[in-house]
């Protein structure tokens, strides 16, 4: 019997792409989960961590740990934020035994959304139908830090009427990289354009990913050059019927 899950709706989803969060709730509830949203939640602290500001990252991480204290499963619709919590919280609290205990206690309970479906809910078919030709973008942290190559693809293959076409640069970075996207906007944009060329070659109508930040980078680039290809979070594809 499915139990209770606590969702962490990352700051970028909360403020810019709420539809992906709503879709995640729909899928989880469809599977019978009792979904809770702890409203004191904010961010995982990654922007500070990646910029080298550990004090600030620690403050935000501590807030996260407080908010999600006691949650059995924490489901996150982002590979990048999941990796921040399950891999890098331990880095920022290195040497602090007490905090490390809390971090290590939460690590196995944090799940990237699609991995949660496969590993905890133990299903690769959530009864979705999405009659489109899509291509999947491997976000770097999901792919390289969480090792998620097959997980999202297994779920996509079970979506009715969905055609999955692989692009030749699926594993290449989209160029977002957090503050990198504005500090080195020209390089970031060059990387996005390489990716866009590869997306266009597939003839896909939608680019799917598990990270909204990558999708923002890709859609922003597609939109600027007038292309109609849409970007969509995996949760939204799985919620569609």
């Amino acid at each position, binding site marked *: 019997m499915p139990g209770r899950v606590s969702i962490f*709706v990352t700051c970028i*989803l909360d403020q810019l792409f709420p539809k992906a969060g709503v879709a995640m709730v729909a899928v989880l509830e469809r599977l019978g989960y009792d979904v809770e949203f702890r409203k004191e939640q904010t961010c995982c602290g990654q922007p500070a961590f990646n910029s080298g500001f550990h004090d600030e990252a620690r403050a935000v991480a501590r807030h996260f740990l407080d908010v999600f204290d006691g949650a059995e499963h924490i489901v996150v619709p982002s590979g990048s934020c999941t990796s921040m919590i399950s891999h890098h919280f331990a880095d920022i609290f290195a040497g602090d035994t007490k905090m490390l205990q809390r971090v290590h206690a939460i690590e196995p309970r944090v799940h990237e959304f699609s991995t949660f479906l496969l590993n905890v809910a133990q299903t690769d078919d959530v009864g979705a139908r999405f009659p489109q030709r899509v291509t999947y973008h491997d976000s770097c942290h999901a792919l390289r830090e969480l090792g998620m190559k097959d997980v999202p693809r297994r779920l996509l293959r079970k979506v009715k009427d969905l055609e999955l076409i692989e692009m030749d640069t699926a594993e290449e970075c989209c160029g977002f990289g957090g503050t*990198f996207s504005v500090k080195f906007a020209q390089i970031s944009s060059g990387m*996005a354009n390489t990716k866009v060329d590869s997306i266009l070659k597939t003839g896909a109508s939608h680019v799917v990913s598990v990270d909204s930040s990558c999708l*923002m980078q890709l859609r922003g680039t597609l939109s*600027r050059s007038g292309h109609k290809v849409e970007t969509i979070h995996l949760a939204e594809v799985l919620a569609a019927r």
Partner: protein
Amino acid sequence: MRENTRQETLDDPKLQLALYTATGRLMDHRKKAIGGGKVPEYQDLRTRAAAVKRHTLDYLDVYLTQFEAAVQANGGKVIWARDGAEAADFILSLAKEKGESLIVKSKSMTSEEIHLNDRLIKHELETVETDLGEYIIQLAGLRPYHIVAPALQMTRYDVSTLFEEKLGIAKDDVIENQTMTARRVLREKFLAAGIGITGANFLVADSGAVVIVENEGNARLSSSAPKIQIAIAGIEKMIPRVRDLGVFLALLGRSATGQALTSYTSILSGPRRKDERDGPEEFYVVLLDAGRTKLLADKEKRESLQCIRCGACLNYCPVYRKVGGHSYPWVYSGPIGKIITPQFQGKEKDPWLPFMSSLCGVCAEVCPVKIDIPKILLALRRESQKSSDDAGAMKWFARLMTRPWLYRLAASFGLGWLGRKDGVWVREVKWPASSGPLKDWLAVRDFPAPPEQSFRDWWEKRRK
């Protein structure tokens, strides 16, 4: 010729294509050499190589002494150089003492690092690069563009123009002919040179050997034709035993060019012996510190010294593939350059360098000796935070994200000001957002208009 700036590189479609194609080809070669179960023990080899390197660095003092003793026993001599000047001074005084004025050189990033050619040429020692790519960039007066392929950015048409200008020969853009031209020029140099300088891919402590891998045979010629051979190497090139070599040779060629083994692997241990017909009469190994011992003392980032200079991280790096080798401040470019440049040259000089990365992590994935480059980039970013422009913004970030009411208020007010509209992507935003980071975002791509309601607004309404 002059170097292209970062922006010029990004704006030059021909150069972009050359860069993308050349690195892509090297990626493909590597994938073919490793993928498809060709080397089932590939991950074990990486683990082993990383462990051997880590161990060697931990006991480097022991292995350096052992190496020196072994070189001496073989009839050679080790020269300890604290920096580039000491290395060059030794070569200059040796050349003077022996009355030599022509030096042939095979490819060595270590010599590039200390600008050895400039130092020697200043004292009227003719020093000729004999690796084809190095020869080309020496003629062009450029820094190496890539650790393994120094003239990676140049097309055959560029080389044709260069040869016409520098060698006074007719234009010819057939690569084979260009190679023959270089060969003709360089053969004469090999025969006339009194000193050959090589680099070293590995130094083997238990046998005092210098190991060089290459494909053109020029390193073998440089180390055997002249009377005197000098190998110049950073102290981190050490491996303990000859029996460790197999692991590294299996990884280096595959990672660099996708070759199971390069065309030539030379294991050079000392001058010609009495019963031998060829080889140099004198054999010297210049061991260079130039910042390495300082890095060795840094436990967190010491693994930067594990690098075997295969160049795989450059080929795979999406940033390198856009900006090219000359957009990096030193001779080492790409991800490995990004982490060793600040550690060798000082962090103050180019504080932006560790930030020129999306932290995608592909470098660490392909590194044959498992250097965790993103981790080191993050450590370098951390060290530079005091001087960072982001300090104020990050303080605010932490304040906002630890106070949910404030986060909510700021988002509601800030994004509300931009104008909420579902499913719309905008090209511009209102002041003052237009002067912040969004300005740089919008310079190259569109931004989503904030949606009518945030997730938490939706959630709260739904609960009612």
